[in-house]
Each structure stands twice: as structure tokens, then as C-alpha cells.
């Protein structure tokens, strides 16, 4: 599938909510580096991270879409989608540490990496196959769901 701009944004938000949300709930109690912190503190940090991946991600998607315009096929290697988690993750971590959009305390690196990386990989895997099963039109609509 080669996404359209609206398809990219819709897919990102939908998968973060439908895959990232339940996964964050599940993994919260067992995240490393928690160091006895109450679960609500962990959830505040991890769900804020999810929110940032979604909202700041819209800007990333604009950039990705813009760059792909210079490619004839309007695609790029599937692996890019996975590797882009690195710059995106770094930015989200920096924003969290800076207290944006609100203070979530001191987020341990190991906790953040474990949460972010697992969410990112899960979403990437689902977007590259299983999403097509319930959403028959999705791949033809460039990732658009609505």
C-alpha cells in the first residue's frame, strides 16, 4: 500500500488508539524501571507518550508524505516505517522530559524504551498486514479508514 496523506494520519491515530491503547494498559504493570512507582503515575507517562506519538506524528506524516512526493512510486522501503521509530521516539522522550504537554515526572529511559518500542513494533506489524483483514477497503484507500 502507498498511503495518501489523510490515510497516513487516520491510520496512525486509529492504530495508536486500537492497538497502542490496550497494549499500554497491559504492559504498564510490568514495565522495567518502574521502581515501585504507582500504576497511575506509569499510565500518565505512557499514555502521554502515546498522545505525543499521535499528535506530533501528524507533523512527521506531513514530512514523510512530502519526501515521498519526490519518489516516482510514492512509496519507500517498509523497513523505513520501522526505523523511523528511532527519531520519533527520541523526540517524544525529549518532549516528555521537558514536561510537554504536562509534567509526567521523571520517566526512566528503560521504561520509555520498552513501552515505546513495543507499541511502535506492534503498530508497524499490524499496519503491514493484519489491518487489511477487518478493513477490506483500507489498502486501496491509501490507509484512509473514514
Amino acid at each position, binding site marked *: *500500500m*502507498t*498511503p*495518501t*496523506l489523510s*490515510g497516513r494520519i487516520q491510520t496512525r491515530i486509529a492504530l495508536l488508539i486500537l492497538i497502542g491503547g490496550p497494549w499500554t494498559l497491559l504492559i504498564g504493570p510490568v514495565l522495567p524501571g518502574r521502581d515501585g512507582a504507582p500504576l497511575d503515575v506509569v499510565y500518565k507517562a505512557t499514555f502521554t507518550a502515546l498522545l505525543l506519538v499521535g499528535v506530533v506524528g501528524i507533523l512527521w506524516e506531513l514530512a514523510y508524505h512530502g519526501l515521498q*512526493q*519526490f519518489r*516516482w*512510486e*510514492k*512509496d519507500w*522501503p*517498509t*523497513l523505513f516505517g*520501522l526505523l523511523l521509530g528511532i527519531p520519533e521516539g527520541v523526540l517524544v522522550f525529549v518532549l516528555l522530559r521537558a514536561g510537554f504537554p504536562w509534567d509526567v515526572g521523571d520517566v526512566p529511559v528503560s521504561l520509555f524504551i520498552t513501552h515505546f518500542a513495543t507499541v511502535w513494533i506492534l503498530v508497524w506489524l499490524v499496519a503491514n*498486514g*493484519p489491518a*487489511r*483483514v*477487518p*478493513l*477490506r*477497503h483500507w*489498502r*486501496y*484507500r*491509501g490507509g484512509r479508514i473514514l
Partner: protein
Amino acid sequence: MAQDQTVVGSQPQIPVGDGDLTDELISAAEWTDALVSRAGIPIVDVPFVTVGGGFGSFAMVDYLRIAGVPVSRIKVLGDSREPWKTYEYLTNNSQIPRRERLRSDSGSVLDNIWGFPSYAVREAWADRSPSALWNVLVEPYIGRDYYTPRAGQVFESVKRETARIGWDEMVAVGVVRMVRKRRDGGYFALHTPAEGPAKRVAYRCNHLHLAVGYPGVKFLDDLQAYRDTNQDYQRVVNAYEPHVHVYEEAKRRPCTVVVRGSGVVSSRVLQRLVDDRDNHGAQTRIVHLFRNYVAGPKGDKLTFRRPGGNGFAYQGFNFAKAAWGGQYRSKMEALEGEARKSFLESMGGTNPAPRRSWKEQIRRGKREGFYVQEIGEVESVQPSADGRDVVTVLRNRAGDRREIDAQFIIDATGLEGNIEDHRLLADLLEHSGAGRNPKGRLDCAPSFEVRGLRSKGGRMYASGSATLGCYFAGVDSFLGLQYAALRIADDLADAGFHPVLGPGRSISQWFKWMRNTPI
């Protein structure tokens, strides 16, 4: 009207015909039940008929079966029981046997409407090797071309799916001579069965789908003239017809082979000729003729520039990938008339895939002198003075004439897309009021319904090459056939033919597919 398949016979009229076509039927734009009965042609009622029986029909029927339409409500009228037969004939001739790879994306999974798991995933699983997976992760970089499935994998997986959906029970083998609107709604498909006592059978249906493929092979005018004049079908051949004698002869003695055309078929032919040099010691000299030579990337805009070089315009598939599901698909659907035609042509045209092995062979051929490119207009093709060779007279851009002596000429310019050359489609244009789209092919709506042929509640659809120029570019591809099937199934669900295939059923059907559970 049509319920499950019922042979109605020739009542209520007393038949006067002998069961064959009558002048009355041929001239009538719409048929009545009485008209067909008078000719003595038995009528079979079936709600949905697909004509063609190849991959287009298969993709359509697979969708409908998964959506819940029972076998008894579908008829496939084709010239063979195996939907891959015609395709395999053409790929075999054009030098893609089962072990070789097609030019189709990993996700264009013909036997699986979801496109998941993809061909690459299935190949990796079957081979217990991550190679295909790595390919789809990094393509088209890090030394990997776009992944494409082997022809054999496609045919075998379609075979598996035909068994799962009860394909054999739906097929009637024979030739469909014509389809006509039925005055009281729906359509007739007039079928000449390959076996059985009836000369003709009229299938009376609510909805009809045409997936008849290409009318035939296409020859360049000068090559057609040579063949007609000299009755020589051995030395001037089409890449899509059987021509293995060319390669055999070239292995036995040094030959010069002229190749015409610069699309993907010519690439396969060139590969075969060079492979035979490499593996069998053939001393073949190849002269490749170009009318339009592509020296480098094409396109004025940085955001719309196709890679090119060595004479070829390169792209992974027939069109830019975004034409199947990205921004170009949306754009095509929004364009009308000449604007759509022009956009389609700017994305398509003649182009091979930029495979590294093909580029290497061409570079090596040029360097070692066994592969020569010539640019110009062919003035004529004629037998040599001693009658043993074929001489191509070429005029290059500078206006100079030169003659190229060769033992063989292979026309690799493609298949005939003119719908008038197909008897059934020509009849549809002449008698039923079907129109032409900007590319001169069948005019269809975005839902692939043939415009102007609605028959009361009945709808007629088309998919495949006959619809090139409508609202979707890659109609003549696996994914294009599946996309057409999806749009048609959606439209039929709107018309109440079957329930909407919602997410729940889609998921449960996918699990059935995974377990290979018959439906």
C-alpha cells in the same frame, strides 16, 4: 426473476428453431424470453453470471463466495475449467515458466481478497527462509529489486482457492458468443457449450460480469504485413505466441535476433537470449530496435519524474505504485475525459521493471558487442535476397537508411487491447449501446458497472483490460482484478444481491481461508 439455477427449457412458446442463433436474435438489441424460446434455445436461470473464466472471473467469484453468495447463484462461463490456463499459456510463451517470477507486487495476492498473508510471507514460510521477507522490507534498495512471486506459486495458490470455493461446480466450459439485455430485466448470455447435446444455452441472469481478457496478440503493422505477404510465421514471431524454436535454433547456430518493443516482455525475451548465451554457449547477436529511446529520467516536475536510461523507462510495475491504492488512485477517480486519459498515459506506457540482473545483462551485452541498440523508424521488413533471412529496413533520426539482417524477429510489443477485435465486446458496442471511455475501451463507472446497460434491476460489470481508461489505472493486474471485484461486490451489496461483507464476517472468513476451510 432468476432464482437458483433452473433449466427452464423452451416453454411457453413452441420452439420453431433448431436451438441455434436466429437472424431475429442477432438483430434484436433486447431479447425477450419468447424470442429465445422460439429459437429452441434452452434457458438456464442463474442470478449472477461471469463471462471469461480466467483470473478476472476468479477474483470476482472469490469475493462473492466470501461475501456469502452460494454456489447455486453463480455461473462461470469460460473456455477452460482452470482460471489460470490462458494466463499460464501467455506467461509460458513470453518466457516466464512456473519457476520464474512475474511482475506483480507481494500484496497482490490473487487467491486471498485481503492481501494478507502476502506472497512474500508465504514464500518465506514455505521455504523456511527469511530471504523473501528481507526483500519486502528493503525493496527496492540494498541490492534487492521489488519482490515478485513465482508464477507457479500464483497458479498453485489459485488452484487451492478454487477447490475451497467450489469453483468446479460453477463452471460451464464453452464460448460465450454474445450477451444481450433482457427486455423484462437482467441479461442473457448466449453460451456455446463445449460438450453436451445443446448447440446453445441462454443463461438468464440478473447481473452479469465480463472479464474476457485480451482479444489476441498484437503485431506491429510492418511485421503483420511481412507475415501476411510471405506467409512466414517462423522467422517473425510474437513474444506471446509459441516461439521456442527461435531459442532452440539460436543454440544450434549463431543467429541474429531482432527484438522489437521496450516493455517488460522484451526484457524477458532479452533475458532468455542472454541466459542461453551464458548457460548454453549460444552465440546470439541481439539487435534491439527502439522507436522512442529513453536516455534518462522522464518528467518535468521533480515530484513526477520516472527513472529511465538505456532506452527504457523504468518502474516497478505497470504504473506507479500509488495508482493501486495511494494518491494516484484517488486522482484517477476524480478525473474525467481527456484529463484522465492523459494522466493515465503519463503514469503508464511502455516500461520494464528496473531489475538489476536485466540491467547487468544489457551493460555486458553492449560492452561485449552481442547486444546492439538501434533507434529509428522501420520502413519495411522483407525476406533477404537468398530468402533465408529477414531484412529490416530502418531509417534513423538523421534520415539515414540501413538494413539489418536477422534470422529472427521477435515482436514484444504486447497484446491487442482494441475491444472491437473481441467478438463479444464488438457485439456489445454494436447492439446493446455500450459506450467507449477516453481510451476507446468499455465505458464504466467507478463501480466498474458498464454505463448505459442497466436493465431494470440488472447491472452489467466489466473488469480487466477492456476497462483501461476508466477510473482505475491498473485494471490489468492481479490487484486491479481484485479491486474491481471489491467495487463490484460493494455495488451488488448496495443493489441487495448479497449482504454487506462487514468487518466481523471479513475476519471470520479470513480465519476460514487460513485454515483452508471450504465455503
